[in-house]
């Protein structure tokens, strides 16, 4: 017994030591600077997403701002000073870190962490200290209720069910054009994200009269997708939909290719817009659909892409990264318009203003941005937004997806 207790105490000490080792990286320490703090999941299960979406964008923005001399506040330019912690993909760790950023480091502003869970976990803390909280990498159907509770939070990427609904809406258009039938095979990951998105899709599918010939969820960490893909293939659906996470998105696509499963619509979840996905599947990405999207022909996207590679040191994905960058532009412009570091004044500016961003003009309605891409498709080596179809720059959906090419 004493051994076990000792083990628990000692592992807690080890964990704490690890947290301290990953502690403050102070950059650009100057007298009249703006202190910015945030956590990023450098380790743990969220690291894969966080380090490809948060780290390069924050790095790029800080360099860009400081190269220009800083943010214009009142009459002077104030450079950024950054404090970064590793939250190790843990909500408790993140709450502690933001508490520390507020009370000990006394940062002027915070940037959001990655994932819905961690953003919601730190929201009460940020609300307590009244920091503007631009939660981009957070998708929740609860957003309309949450903004009533927290006047300082802003949602950029909508709610989970909206993605399912948007997909069904464009599938309905394709069916009316006679390009696809009504049979859908759907798989989703068994967690909040999968439940929200597949739930939205189910509801919208019922409304449009689509039929699910296969509708199953799989646990997080599933390594072998062959049973799912082969069963779906045996049912011969016109549409395959997966609300999946990056490793599963790759595994499902790979298995579909190996099994020669060629539905007319092949839709996979998070990760479809990642540069890693393009690298892995090359020409085979053509026609694959997924969540999110960009207007890849827009010069603003091209400029963002170039800067992301130069200053951030990596290729951006084709959805979330530009939204995160836009949220930083909004924060910067709101500070400049307020002309002060007073957080209440900055929040008021974010609520009422229209901002010029890499996404074009952005404005929050009830603290939520609703004008985003919900569905995208790889066309000619680029990932374009296809839904909502009325959004400027929306591409036509190309169906059927071409058959897999041998590798």
């Amino acid at each position: 017994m004493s051994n076990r207790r000792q083990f628990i105490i000692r592992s807690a000490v080890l964990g704490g030591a690890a947290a301290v080792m990953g502690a403050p990286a102070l950059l650009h320490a100057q007298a009249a600077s703006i202190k910015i703090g945030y956590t990023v999941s450098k380790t743990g299960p969220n690291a894969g997403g966080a380090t490809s979406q948060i780290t390069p964008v924050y790095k790029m923005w800080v360099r860009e701002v400081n190269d220009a001399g800083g943010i214009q506040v009142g009459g002077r330019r104030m450079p950024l000073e950054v404090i970064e912690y590793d939250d190790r993909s843990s909500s408790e760790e993140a709450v502690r870190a933001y508490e520390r950023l507020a009370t000990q480091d006394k940062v002027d502003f915070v940037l959001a962490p990655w994932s819905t869970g961690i953003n919601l976990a730190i929201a009460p803390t940020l609300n307590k200290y009244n920091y503007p909280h631009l939660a981009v990498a957070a998708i929740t159907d609860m957003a309309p209720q949450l903004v009533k509770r927290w006047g300082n939070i802003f949602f950029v990427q909508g709610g989970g069910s909206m993605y399912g609904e948007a997909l069904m809406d464009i599938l309905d258009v394709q069916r009316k054009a006679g390009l696809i039938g009504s049979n859908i095979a759907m798989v989703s990951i068994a967690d909040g994200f999968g439940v929200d998105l597949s739930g939205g899709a189910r509801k919208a599918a019922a409304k449009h009269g689509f039929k699910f010939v296969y509708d199953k969820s799989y646990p997080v960490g599933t390594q072998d997708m062959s049973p799912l893909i082969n069963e779906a293939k045996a049912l011969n659906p016109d549409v395959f939909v997966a609300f999946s996470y990056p490793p599963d998105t790759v595994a499902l696509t790979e298995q579909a290719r190996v099994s020669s499963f060629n539905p007319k619509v092949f839709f996979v979840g998070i990760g479809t817009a990642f540069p890693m996905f393009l690298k892995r599947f090359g020409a085979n990405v053509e026609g694959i659909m997924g969540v999110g999207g960009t207007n890849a022909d827009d010069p603003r996207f091209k400029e963002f892409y170039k800067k992301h590679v130069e200053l951030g040191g990596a290729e951006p994905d084709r959805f979330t990264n530009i939204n995160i960058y836009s949220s930083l532009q909004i924060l910067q412009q709101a500070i400049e318009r307020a002309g002060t570091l007073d957080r209440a004044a900055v929040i008021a500016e974010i609520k009422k203003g229209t901002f010029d961003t890499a996404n074009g003009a952005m404005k929050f309605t009830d603290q939520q941005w609703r004008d985003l891409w919900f569905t995208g498709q790889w066309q000619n080596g680029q990932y374009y937004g296809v839904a909502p179809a009325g959004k400027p720059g929306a591409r036509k959906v190309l169906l059927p997806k071409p058959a897999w090419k041998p590798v």
Partner: protein
Amino acid sequence: MQLIVELLLFGLTLGGLYAMVAMGLTLQYGVARIMHLAYGEWLIAAAFGAYAAFTYWQVNPLITLALSLPVGFAVNWLVYQVLLSPLVRRTQAGPALEVDSLLATFGLLFVVQGVMVVLFGGSYHSYNFAAEAVNIGGALIARNRLIMFGLTVLAGLSIYLFLSRTRAGAAVRAVATAPGNAPLVGIDVRKVSAITFAVGGALVAAGGVLASMFLTFSASMGVIFTMKALIVIIMGGVGNMLGAVVAGLLLGMAETLVARLVDPGLTLAVNYLLFLSVLLWRPAGLFGRPVR
């Protein structure tokens, strides 16, 4: 008919992955008595090695696989000599060794993971190798999965034969079953433990290279493999090579059957159900002998 071939084939290849991942740990934990928590980290490190060699220098992963054996052996031998042998001396290889090695390798986990994050970042990686479909009795399967399965069977079989048919193998088994008595017949327990631990390291490195051919991995995924390996070796009987292979195949088979015939959402449940029923029936694992 095609369904049966499919189920068998996919069940066996998934089971082969589990068995491959678990074989090294059963040696390290079963024989050397080291509960190696950084085990999965080495698997990911080897996967990154194969990834880097393939994408930057176009080295065939099968060559990396051959290299991974001596490198994995050397690195793990060093880990044992530098990090673990002081613990072995202090605890006289008694029951306290398991707890102490748990703590030491827990620290090692952070070090290895940290180095990988610095070198490769935290994002997902994957590459394409031997991914073309092979048709076996109407079932389509990627060639890299077959390579993995074949090599797992080969590795499992050769180590099993080594342990059961050779004199050196008998020494290893003696250390596994009765570390206190082995010195009485002239076995250098520390040396045998160090070498067995290093062989376990070579196996996990090979497993990492093989898995990297079809899995998408990131620097923080090691713990998933450590956990899977633990389930497999405890179910198979700690320290028993045949047990690890059989348990791995059983789990893979069960998961595939349930995912295809019942519901993919139940794979985790069937995993633990099988695990618990085996332990209720045989508390020391399928092939384990009750010790102490």
